C-alpha cells in the first residue's frame, strides 16, 4: 500500500519512494558504475592500444577496427609492440633492474622498519602515540618534496659530501646524486612508512603471553624471536613488503629526480616512451607487461587484506 501511495504522491515523495525501493542497488550501483567506467574500461583501452600500430598522427596510433574496406570491420591485431619489447634488450634489462631495485629496497625497509614497529608496540602510553604519529606524518606530506630533500643531501656540494670532507674522509666530493645509490636511498626513504604501519597494526594485536611462555620455559630471546614472534608477525611482514614492493617496481619520481636517467626503471621508461618518443602503443605494451608482472603480488596483497578484514 505504501508503495502505491508514493507512486501517485508529490514529486519528492516519488523520488524518496524510488530511493527506498532501490536503496541497495543505489549503494552498490553508483560506485560500481563509476569504477567500471573510469577504472576497468580504461584498462581495456590500454590493452587494445598495445596491439595497435604506431603512426605519426594525432593521436599517434592506428585503430584496431579497420572500417576502410566497408561492410564488416577487420580486426587488425598487431603483436609487433610485444615482440619489440622482447627483442630490444633495453626493456628486459629495465624490467629486471626495476624488480631488483624494488626487492632490495623492500628488504632494507623490512630490516629498518621491523625493529621500529616492534619498538613502537613496546612503548607505553602517550609516547607510543607520538611515535606512531611521527610515522604517519610523512604520509600526509608531499612525496615529491620528500624526494627533493634528498637532492640537497646527496648533491656534490650537499650535506653528505660536506660532512665527509669536513671529517677528512675524502679529499674531493664523491658522486652520489644521479647514481643507483641515490635511487635506493630515495625509495627506502619514501616507502618506509608503508612498511612500518602494517607491521605495527599486526604486532599491536599480538598476544604477548606466548612469547612470555617461551621465555619462562627457558628459551633465549633470540630463539624466542625466531620461533614465536617472527612467525606470528608474518602477515604484517607480507602486507608491508607488498605495499613497498608493488609501487616501488613502477616508481617514476625517484629514478627521475635522484637517478637522473642513469638508473633504468620501468615506470620512467614507460613515461619517456609516451611523452618523449610519442610511441603510445609501445608505452601501452609496457603497461600491460608491468601489470602482468605485478598481478600475482597484487592478488596476494588482496588475499592478505581480506584475511585481516575477516579477523
Amino acid at each position, binding site marked *: 500500500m505504501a508503495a502505491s501511495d508514493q507512486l501517485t504522491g508529490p514529486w519528492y515523495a516519488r523520488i524518496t519512494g524510488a530511493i527506498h525501493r532501490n536503496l541497495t542497488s543505489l549503494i552498490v550501483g553508483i560506485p560500481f558504475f563509476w569504477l567500471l567506467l573510469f577504472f576497468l574500461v580504461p584498462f581495456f583501452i590500454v590493452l587494445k592500444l598495445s596491439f595497435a600500430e604506431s603512426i605519426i598522427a594525432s593521436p599517434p596510433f592506428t585503430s584496431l577496427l579497420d572500417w576502410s574496406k566497408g561492410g564488416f570491420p577487420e580486426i587488425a591485431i598487431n603483436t609487433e609492440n610485444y615482440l619489440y619489447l622482447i627483442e630490444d634488450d633495453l626493456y628486459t634489462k629495465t624490467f629486471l633492474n626495476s624488480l631488483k631495485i624494488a626487492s632490495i629496497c623492500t628488504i632494507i625497509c623490512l630490516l629498518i622498519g621491523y625493529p621500529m614497529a616492534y619498538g613502537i608496540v613496546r612503548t607505553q602510553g602517550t609516547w607510543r602515540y607520538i611515535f606512531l604519529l611521527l610515522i604517519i606524518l610523512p604520509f600526509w606530506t608531499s612525496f615529491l618534496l620528500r624526494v627533493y*630533500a634528498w637532492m640537497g643531501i646527496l648533491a656534490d656540494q650537499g650535506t653528505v659530501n660536506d660532512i665527509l670532507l669536513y671529517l677528512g674522509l675524502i679529499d674531493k666530493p664523491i658522486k652520489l646524486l644521479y647514481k643507483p645509490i641515490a635511487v635506493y636511498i630515495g625509495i627506502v626513504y619514501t616507502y618506509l612508512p608503508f612498511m612500518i604501519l602494517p607491521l605495527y597494526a599486526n604486532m599491536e594485536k599480538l598476544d604477548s603471553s606466548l612469547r612470555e611462555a617461551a621465555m619462562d620455559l627457558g628459551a633465549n*630471546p633470540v630463539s624466542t624471536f625466531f620461533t614465536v614472534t617472527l612467525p606470528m608477525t608474518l602477515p604484517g611482514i607480507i602486507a608491508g613488503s607488498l605495499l613497498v614492493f608493488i609501487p616501488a617496481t613502477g616508481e617514476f619520481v625517484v629514478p627521475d629526480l635522484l637517478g637522473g636517467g642513469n638508473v633504468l626503471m620501468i615506470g620512467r621508461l614507460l613515461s619517456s616512451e609516451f611523452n618523449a618518443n610519442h610511441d603510445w602503443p609501445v608505452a601501452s605494451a609496457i603497461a600491460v607487461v608491468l601489470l602482468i608482472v605485478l598481478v600475482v603480488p597484487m592478488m596476494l596483497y588482496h588475499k592478505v587484506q581480506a584475511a585481516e578484514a575477516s579477523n
Partner: protein
Amino acid sequence: MNQKKSKFLISCMIFGYAFLYVPIFLLILYSFNYSPLLPVWGGFSTRWYSRLLESPEVWDATLLSLKIAFISATVATVFGTLAGLALARVGQFRGKTVFTGMISAPLVMPEVITGLSLLLFFITLWQLTGWPQQRGMFTITIAHITFAMAYVAVIIQSRLAGTNRALEEAAMDLGAKPLRVLTDITIPMLAPGMMAGWLLAFTLSLDDLIIASFVSGPGSTTLPMMIYSRIRLGLKPDINALATILIVSVAIGVFIAGWIMLRQQKQRALLANE
C-alpha cells in the same frame, strides 16, 4: 608488553626516526639560506619566502590544486562510503568479486599505469563523442575521485567491520525504513571515518604528480606539476620555502588531530572505568 627495550631496539628507533626526519629538517633549514647556491650556506634570510609569495605562478597552481582536491575529496568520500557500505553491509551481489578487485587495485597500482590508462580513455571518449574537448581541471578531478574513493572505501569498510549492528537492527525492528536507518544511524556512526577519508583523499589529490601530469592539458598546472618542473633542473631555494610552508602546516594539522583523538580516547577510557 611492558618490558624494557633492549639497547639494540632503542638504537634502531633512533636511527629510523633520524633517517625519516633529518632530511626534512635540512630542507627547512636551507629555506632560510641567503645564498641562491644550494646547499652552500650564506647566512640567514627569508628572501625566498617573499619571492615565493610574489610569484603569480605559485598562487595559480596552488589555487587549482586546492580546487581539485576539495571537489575530488568530497565526491570520493560519497562514492567511497557507498562502496564501503556495499562491501561490508550488502551481502552477496552479482559482480562482487570484480567490485572488490576494482576497490583494492588502485591502492597498489603503479601510478604510471593509472595515468596512462585514464589519458587514453579520455582521448578515446573524445574521439567517439567530441567530449572532453580540453583536458584540465575536470579530467584531473575525475582521475582523483577514482583513485581516492578506493582509499575511502577501505577506511569505511574497516570501520563498519569494527562496529556492531545492534543499533541498526534495533531501528529496523522498531519499523524504520532502510533509508532512515542509513541516514539516522549508519552515517552518523561513520562520520569520523568519513572525515578521515575526506582528509586522506584531499591530501592524496594535493600530492599527486603522475596521474595529473598524464590527464592534464595545456594551461592546467597543479602545484606538484609546477614544483616538479622547477626541481627537475636542480635545487631551487624558493621550493625549499614552499616545502617548509606545506610541511609545517601539515605537521600542525596532524598533531592537532592526533591530540584531539588522544583526548577522546582518554575520555572514553575514563567513562568505561566509571
